[in-house]
């Protein structure tokens, strides 16, 4: 077996950190697909960053033990040198975009490799095709949805035609079609004798026969082994008793300038969890923001009962700005003049032990939970969540489900926009699909 990477008792500690994020890691990486599993904050992202040398070269810090990637000593080889053969897609793909349009963004990597223009054009076309987005080639990145951006980032990595492809939570915003396209592409690369390493909380979306699994926990590899199955779908949950309508939209047309969805009639009752699914770019976020009152409808009406609205944006990190997590939740309490303590919601999201930490020092999954705690504290009457399980591990998903169950039981009307159809089936009393500008009911829990 060709070794793509070899780590021997490798450890790494970030600057100004007291704890080693990776501790005495020993493993060999061969051709094919390797899936990296583990809870939020277990060190997956750090290990992935080792594979292209960002750790330790870009971040600094302290490394010990030995590591080789593509026969290069990790400590002696710069990231830019490794990057000619190792491509990486980051957990937050929107942060990696350099240029303004899709075609040019996908071409950026091949341009850095110094390839001739006709080969760059060929690679860009093939990569866009493989991710199912050739029609987005001339679009501006700023106009794309989160899922579409994730596909662009993946296409940009594929256009580099790397020997080793490293993907950090690549399906967190992808619809089923996009995840399927990525799965095929991973299989194709594996069959060509290349290596693909994926950190993914829903590994069954990308894994293929023969995939290898590495389990990471608190910076150590705790297990290796074969395939994981998708958790069985939940059994029938008793339907909740619903109150009167909390909000209602009629003949609604939504969009920024041009309409993306028309003739929408929808309502949500107190005590109901309504999930909005649909393909990437179908307008889920636009509809959610319009119902929440953050965007003006192009036509039609939105009627909300008086009461507090809680809103979690798709990129929640931006709302966190206090020095500690407990301060962050307390800030919402102060602003809204709520009569409650920050601790119960922190406990609900298993964040009490991190309460004194700066939210920006947390992992992406932990940040997501922190943002949820900050917006959901105090039992809002209406809740609007945009991709709330982005980067969330199975435990975080369960915690979210539990909190939403509690809130719905207390009478909150909850709207969740998500590309995660499994989550929608698990938590939703009703699931509506938005596709091709129209809304249709996918499922409803029997009353």
């Amino acid at each position, binding site marked *: 077996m060709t070794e793509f990477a070899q780590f021997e008792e490798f450890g790494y500690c970030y600057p100004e950190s007291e704890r080693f994020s990776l501790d005495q890691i020993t493993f060999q990486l061969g051709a094919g697909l390797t899936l990296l599993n583990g809870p939020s904050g277990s060190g997956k992202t750090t290990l992935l960053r080792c594979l292209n040398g960002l750790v330790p070269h870009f971040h600094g810090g302290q490394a010990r033990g030995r590591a080789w990637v593509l026969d290069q000593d990790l400590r002696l080889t710069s990231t*830019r040198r490794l990057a000619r053969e190792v491509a990486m897609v*980051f957990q937050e793909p929107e942060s990696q975009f350099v*240029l303004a349009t899709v075609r*040019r963004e996908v071409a950026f990597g091949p341009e850095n490799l110094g390839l001739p*223009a006709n080969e760059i054009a060929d690679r860009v076309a093939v990569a866009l095709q493989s991710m199912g987005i050739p029609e987005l080639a001339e679009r501006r990145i*700023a106009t794309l949805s989160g899922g579409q951006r994730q596909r662009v980032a993946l296409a940009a990595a594929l256009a580099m035609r790397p020997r080793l492809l490293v993907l950090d939570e690549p399906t967190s915003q992808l619809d089923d079609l996009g995840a399927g396209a990525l799965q095929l592409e991973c299989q194709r690369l594996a069959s060509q004798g290349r290596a693909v390493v994926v950190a993914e909380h829903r590994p069954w979306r990308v894994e293929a026969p023969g995939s290898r699994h590495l389990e990471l926990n608190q910076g150590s590899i705790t297990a290796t082994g074969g395939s994981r199955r998708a958790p069985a779908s939940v059994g029938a949950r008793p339907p909740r008793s619903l109150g009167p309508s909390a909000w209602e939209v009629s003949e609604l047309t939504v969009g920024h300038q041009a309409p993306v969805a028309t003739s929408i009639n929808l309502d949500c009752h107190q005590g109901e969890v309504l999930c909005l699914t649909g393909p990437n770019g179908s307008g889920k976020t636009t509809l959610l923001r319009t119902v929440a009152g*953050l965007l003006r409808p192009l036509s039609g009406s939105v009627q909300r009962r008086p009461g507090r609205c809680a809103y979690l944006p798709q990129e929640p990190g931006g709302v966190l700005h206090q020095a500690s997590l407990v301060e962050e939740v307390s800030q919402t309490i102060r602003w809204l003049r709520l009569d409650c303590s920050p601790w119960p919601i922190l406990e609900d999201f298993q964040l009490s032990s991190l309460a004194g930490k700066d939210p920006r020092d947390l992992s992406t999954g932990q940040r997501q939970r922190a943002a949820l705690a900050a917006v959901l504290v105090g039992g809002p009457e209406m809740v609007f969540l945009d991709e709330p399980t982005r980067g969330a591990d199975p435990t975080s998903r369960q915690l979210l489900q539990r909190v939403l169950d509690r809130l719905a039981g207390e009478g909150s009307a909850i709207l969740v926009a998500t590309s995660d159809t499994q989550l929608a089936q698990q938590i939703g009393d009703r699931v509506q699909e938005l596709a091709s500008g129209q809304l249709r009911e996918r499922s409803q829990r029997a009353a």
Partner: protein
Amino acid sequence: MNPRALAVWVAAVLLLSLGSEDPILRVLTLGAALAVLVAHRRVETRLRPVLWAVGVAALLTVLFNVLLSHTGQTVLVSLPGWLPALGGPLTLEGAAYGLDLALGLAACIVAGVSLSLVVESYQLVDSLPALLSRTGAALGAAMTLVPRLGHSFVAVREAQHMRGWRPKGMRSWTAVVVPSVLTTIEGSVLLAEAMEARAFGSGPRTALTTSRWRVTDLVIAATSAAAIGGFIAALVFGQLPAWQPYPALTLPTLSWWPALCCLGLFIPALLP
């Protein structure tokens, strides 16, 4: 518009607006810069924030000059002498000179902004010589950070508003400004990391496309170059009007040769 032709035009605007203090020439240059920006900006770009920024910069320039110059014969009002730096006469001449400076500054800002509103950042990168391609790519990435900051500000303001934040005085805006800036700084670090991970700087770069010259681009470059040449000739032959508002305000006089050079800068606005 070809970015190289645009660059020649921008160079002409900068030279003509900074090379003379004559207000007539500066008004003409600012007019040309605005006309070209309005005619050629990309459809998706917004003009209003630019005009606001230019307006604020111009206003501050006038204000600072009035408050700090204390020179000139026509005294509008006198501030008490114990006020540090500000104390003394505020004059009409100071206001006129501040306005003149503001006109030049506004022309420069509008011309500079047109580099990002008329052409895409990647077109600028592509038009640079191979030797500067890495610098250009870094510049292109830097240019995306300004809209990112704007996007971040709007997103954070929205999210905080939904958490109950309401603007109450300057201090309350820290809840929006601090996370916006932090997010943008974090984004810059991530971008630098991503560029490194995408082999930026690992060797000589190539480009997917190269910018082409159309006849209109040649006309723009030629007229802009002629404006630069004409202005330098006017400077060399002493044909530039020498306007000075101090000690007493006088009206500027029209000098045809440099004025024609300024009028040449309107040509891109007339071309498709």
